[in-house]
């Protein structure tokens, strides 16, 4: 147990490569639209956009199956798309519409698709590490060979919930893969100033589990590295802590001037854009032509336009009368308090 080398992934069949590219493009298109709607104040609330980090979610998700679970974060749109999310239902949710994934109750920070194995986003940094650990415990006790992917940020790795969860998973050898999306910053505080270690993955040593640092901008390396951890987990060999080095292009919120980082740093990462890198690879390996990839992008743009039309113009806000729906399962609000349904 200890630090492992990341795996480097090889290009595979065209249809799969094209799918990975499409998924990254779908996230990018969604997030750029979200950012635009936020700027135009059409979107209410807070949205944390995933643009720049697409390869992490798409690569990781490519390594798991339908029967597996994921838990997400406040920056959860990318996870939801990569897990098979429908852009229509997602944008509707961000708009707080009844047609959204959570009927407009959750919004951006609580987007979930439990039936698809996405146990949901949380607005609490580090809030889902114990939840993911419990989901992995459940599948283990149920005798399934499912795994749970637990996404969280570099900042979350300083919460007590990180420590308690990894210790529990380490002791019980649970089939959970902790994927730390290290995008170098919390909100404004850099890893350097908030975190006592440079590579969060080294913390694996404290839990007797394997750890690995992977370049989060390379979707195929991401997939290969997660796949290896998934294999270990399914084989009963326990959890892994994977740290993906990545970057978020946008400020933390619409009002964030990004005073805590430099233009140079931003340029360095833009030059390592995960979509650009993947396009170069596919072209160079002659898997897809530029035209073919542009065509995918156009289809994605159309899908996004349709999603916008659906969420903004074809969807209604929830009725105020539905306020008390689903606070409890099997109970409803009555004259003096709760009553059985």
């Amino acid at each position: 147990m200890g630090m492992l080398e990341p795996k480097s992934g090889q290009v595979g069949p065209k249809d799969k490569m094209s799918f990975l590219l499409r998924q990254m493009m779908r996230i990018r298109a969604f997030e750029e639209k979200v950012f635009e709607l936020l700027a135009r104040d059409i979107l209410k609330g807070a949205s944390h956009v995933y643009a720049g980090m697409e390869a992490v979610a798409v690569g990781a998700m490519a390594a798991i199956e339908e029967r597996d679970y994921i838990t997400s974060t406040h920056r959860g749109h990318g996870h939801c798309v990569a897990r098979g999310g429908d852009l229509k239902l997602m944008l509707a949710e961000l708009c707080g519409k009844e047609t959204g994934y959570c009927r407009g109750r959750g919004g951006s920070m609580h987007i979930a698709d439990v039936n698809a194995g996405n146990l949901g986003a949380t607005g609490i940094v580090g809030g889902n590490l114990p939840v993911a650990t419990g989901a992995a415990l459940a599948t283990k006790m149920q005798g399934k060979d499912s795994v749970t992917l637990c996404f969280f940020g570099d900042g979350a790795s300083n919460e007590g919930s990180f420590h308690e969860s990894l210790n529990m998973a380490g002791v019980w050898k649970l089939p959970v893969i902790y994927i730390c999306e290290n995008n170098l910053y919390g909100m404004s505080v850099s890893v350097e100033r908030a975190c006592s270690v440079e590579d969060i993955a080294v913390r694996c040593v404290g839990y007797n589990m394997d750890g690995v640092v992977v370049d989060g901008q390379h979707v195929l390396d991401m997939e290969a590295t997660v796949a290896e951890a998934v294999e270990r987990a399914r084989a009963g060999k326990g959890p892994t802590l994977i740290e993906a080095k990545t970057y978020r292009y946008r400020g933390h919120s619409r009002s964030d001037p990004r005073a805590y980082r430099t233009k140079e740093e931003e340029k360095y990462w833009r030059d390592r854009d995960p979509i650009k890198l993947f396009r170069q690879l596919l072209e160079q390996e002659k898997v897809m032509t530029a035209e073919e990839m542009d065509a995918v992008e156009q289809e994605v743009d159309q899908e996004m336009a349709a999603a916008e039309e659906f969420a903004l113009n074809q969807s209604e806000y929830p009725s105020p009368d539905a306020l008390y729906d689903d606070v409890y399962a099997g109970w409803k609000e009555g004259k003096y308090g709760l009553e059985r349904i």
Partner: protein
Amino acid sequence: MAQKFYREAVRDALAEEMRRDASVFVMGEDVAIYGGAYSATKGLYEEFGGERVRDTAISEAAIAGAAVGAAMAGMRPVAEIMYFDFMTIAMDQFVNQGAKNRYMFGGKTKVPMVLRTEGGAGRCIAAQHSQSLEAWFTHVPGVFVVMPSTPHDAKGLLKASIRDDNPVLFIEHKMLYGNKGEVPDEDYIVPLGQAAIRREGKDLTIISYSRMALVAEEAGKILEGEGIDAEVIDLRSLQPLDMATILASVKKTGRVLLASEAAENTNFVCEIAMKINEHAFDYLDAPMARVCAANTPVPMAPTLEDACIPTAAKIVDKARKLVGKEL
């Protein structure tokens, strides 16, 4: 019907539900080999083994959060937080994730979990091991709060809580584990949200729960000797709350005395008083009175702990004033 200890009633409820339903399991600190700090899980490890009766590390946040995740993934965890005071470490997982996930996710998930814990004073173990914090949780939409006072109710309510599809905070009382009482031999539950009238009376209504409900009953007996006829209600579950029983009694007696072992300020009984005021104001013949713990941390010294916590004598004294029959 057999006589059982409160702690046995809890243990039997767990054992029976674990036999009934393979998705029910127990986890917590020292619940397996040790059988629980108050022996409420004794024997479970021997019967069900370490897979379904899990000793955990001292990690309350992970215990509560893992229960949330396991529940969302199809299990029915019964997790133990050794002392109510340690819920302070599990708050985010229980209140922000467990209580809200169903609502935030538009009703597309449920979180059928029970957090068992144990509260109350009486052992001279001071401010961090004697708290009664139920008022925090009745203030949190999405969770149930259950506080049994007898072995019968402990078993019946725990079984009901395990079968319910919502997160339940099940609060036992450290001074009750050694109490004995009648427990039916056959399978039964006590439905959530039904108060029990422990004694009927016409002069005043004493409303309480958990150990204080027994103290209130004791006070009722003393008052009877003085010719004061008290009706004593044991809430059993604070959320859902049985207002129908409360209001019927208040409309009969016109006088209300509320007793709780939690600190007075913003005590849960204030919610009951507010509701009585809203729904039965015209029936009140006197101001509602309360007997709660002092607004202090619970002190260790026996003389101070006694002064801090409600007693039958304090309840009797308030009751006399309430009915205008001071000695």
